[in-house]
């Protein structure tokens, strides 16, 4: 247990370093983009004198390093700064974007994990059977459909054509509205994770300790679910972590198609308008969630299969 805690502490320290590195790289990348927030805001009225005035009003006439330094200093006090363009606090953008993104991510995960295990275990226990082959075909096929294509088809059929569920999230995220986005978000992860569960389960069932347990006459269900399954899940946990990270980043395509104002939408808008403080605020959020999710995944894998240490 002490080993676990010191491991977690080292990972946390590393995580802080990683977040700072990500923020620095993002700052440099946005600096490298052509044009700045003033040029982007001036749009089709690019009067040079006007752009200079906008630039001065945004504080962009300050040296970039100084602006970055000021921003980092603010971050140490948990102050994310204000948007260059609208002057509203960056924290507001993060909060309003995070709510729908977190809701979708949480619901997706709640459905994803049990469904993937169910499908993977069902296939593994009947390895080579028609059921296994059918599940394999469906999951390979479904996995190769990009989110936007699946979303467009689902909206056309169930949203607009049959009118069973609302086609977009305009008007708020009610349960009926969530059906189609959740289907789209679940489709590919279920395929990939259930394949991993299936492979892990098959490997575990043919392992020495399972054979030994069988010879001892232990109940077959107990062998499968108490001994084989936890070991089978370890590889899948990493994939669940990657999926969680993907979901928490705001799945831009899904948000755009269904009109969900989540973090992905905030990011696209902020990059297009070169709103550096908002982009940096998002970088912090994404870096923190990535580090946290991966740490949790490692700890979970450690608990599930201590021998992997």
């Amino acid at each position, binding site marked *: 247990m002490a080993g676990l805690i010191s491991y977690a502490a080292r990972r946390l320290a590393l995580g802080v370093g990683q977040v700072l590195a990500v923020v620095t790289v993002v700052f440099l990348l946005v600096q490298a983009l*052509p*044009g700045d927030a003033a040029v982007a805001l001036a*749009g089709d009225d690019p009067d040079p004198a006007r752009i200079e005035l906008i630039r001065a*009003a945004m504080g962009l006439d300050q040296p970039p390093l100084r602006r970055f330094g000021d921003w980092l200093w603010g971050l140490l006090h948990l102050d994310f700064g204000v948007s260059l363009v609208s002057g509203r606090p960056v924290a507001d953008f993060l909060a309003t974007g995070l709510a729908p993104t977190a809701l979708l991510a949480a619901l997706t995960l709640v459905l994803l994990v049990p469904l993937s295990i169910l499908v993977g275990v069902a296939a593994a226990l009947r390895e080579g059977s028609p059921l296994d082959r059918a599940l394999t075909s469906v999951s390979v096929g479904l996995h190769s459909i990009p989110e936007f294509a699946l979303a467009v088809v689902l909206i056309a059929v169930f*949203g607009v054509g049959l009118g069973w569920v609302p*086609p977009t999230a305009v008007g708020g995220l009610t349960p009926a509205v969530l059906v189609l986005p959740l289907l789209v978000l679940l489709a590919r992860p279920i395929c990939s994770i259930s394949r991993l569960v299936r492979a892990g389960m098959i490997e575990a069932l043919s392992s020495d300790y399972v054979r030994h347990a069988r010879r001892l006459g232990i109940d077959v269900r107990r062998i499968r679910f108490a001994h084989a399954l936890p070991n089978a899940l370890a590889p899948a946990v990493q994939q669940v972590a990657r999926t969680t990270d993907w979901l928490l980043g705001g799945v831009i395509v899904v948000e755009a*198609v269904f009109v969900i104002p989540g973090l992905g939408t905030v990011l696209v*808008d*902020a990059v297009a308008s070169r*709103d550096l403080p908002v982009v940096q605020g998002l970088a912090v959020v994404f870096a923190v969630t990535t580090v946290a999710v991966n740490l949790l995944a490692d700890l979970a894998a450690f608990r599930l299969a201590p021998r992997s240490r």
Partner: protein
Amino acid sequence: MNTQHSRRGFLGLAGLSVVTLAACSTSPAAPAAATPKSGGRLRAAFAGGGAKEVLDPHLANLFNEAARAKAVYDKLADLGADVAAQPRLAEKWEPNADLTRWRITLRQAVFHDGKPVRAQDVLSSYARILDPGKAFRAKASLSLIDLANSRAVDDRTVEFALKRPYVEFPNALAAFGAYIVPEDTQDFTRPVGSGPFRFVSFEPGKSVLLKKNSDYWEGAPYLDELEFIIANEESARTNALLGGQVEYAHDLTPTTARSHASGGKVTIHRSPNSAVQGFAMKLDRAPFDNRDLREALFLLADRPQLVESTLAGSGQVANDLFGKGYQFYAGDIPQRERDLDKAKALIKKAGAEGLTIKLDTSTAAAGMVEAATIFADQAKGSGLTIEVVTGNKDTYWADTLKNGSLSSFRSGAMPIESHIAQRLLTTSTTNTTKWTRPEFDALYQKAVSTSDTQARAAVYGEMQRSLHADGGYLLWGFADWIVGTSPKVGGVATAPANTLDWARFDKVWLG
């Protein structure tokens, strides 16, 4: 912008004959929408700008901001069907003989807080826009006002002193963003205007809710409530409309319009002559400092094919001139057509055979990349090679103002005089074609100092002839502006973006 915030700028409505044509091309309204009816909430889907969105009407930049601004606020004037200024909060305007002092009489109107709209509010609003340290969009248009010598004669009379004679001063009063706000307003988190709707709530990047202003000077709106909803993707706006989640979807593509025009589920409203499309050649540098080469490009363009392919037929052919159907448009200049042989001869004469010219374009406005690709194809076999270079959409307009020699161009409607003042004078701040001719500048000064409308039209005609013959704008088409509504929505005018009747919800009802 995604194209959401890229299609900004002025747009306008064409002449009367065109309006009739538009009425024909629109699906017949369902019976429920035929007679005006009060009540209900209309939900209107627009593309938005997320972080950028603001409620300050002087900062309005995006279409959704402009539409919200006009629902809450009024300008002294606005652009009518022929893209000429017509009075709004100003009841009338009277210039002095040399056109340097203008007396504006205000209508009897009240702000949403019950206070009357006074001359002081007008002067204070314009002073805010003209602040030397600020960059409001209407500043350039209003910069002719000599504010120090302008005054409030009484509560309902303003007298503006101008720095020069300017007969088109009403165009300035109608400028994008020249809204009248209560005197000394600094905080726009709960906007107070004199417009047909009152502010209720705002969720940036999501929605704005307004309710009817029963005391509006032009009569109360039919709608009880108006909600602006942000949906950046055109497909999402269309789906929300088809799914009954909104009643109005702004800025649809010609393809969407074509697929749903006859289905009966939505009504398609097209506004012709809305956005001009073309290419800008820079006259101050090679190769287009050579007049023959400019003419060669004019003759290479197959305009009907560009309109058919790029606009999917939702548009009309242009004649290298801005503002077809608008007041002062030189409709007597013959339509230019493709003439490959003559173009080849001119290219040879210019010594440009075998030359490769880069055509800068981007997705900053719909259809620009497609048009550039088609035009490059049309230039094949002429001796010139046009190489399409797709640049960054977010900085496109600033980039092409400075760099390159040939670029895609698009503009919304504005009075022809504004187009000239902003883009074609030596002093113009967005002179992309680098058209700097002292004799042309002098003609402009003559036009805006001429009270007589016919005499002025003659001067504008002369200027347009010189642009048509020598200029740097190759304008090939005018795109329709397309809006979709639920069939139960009535009273939607087919007016392009940012003219008075575009996105005007006080005259709209739910049947």
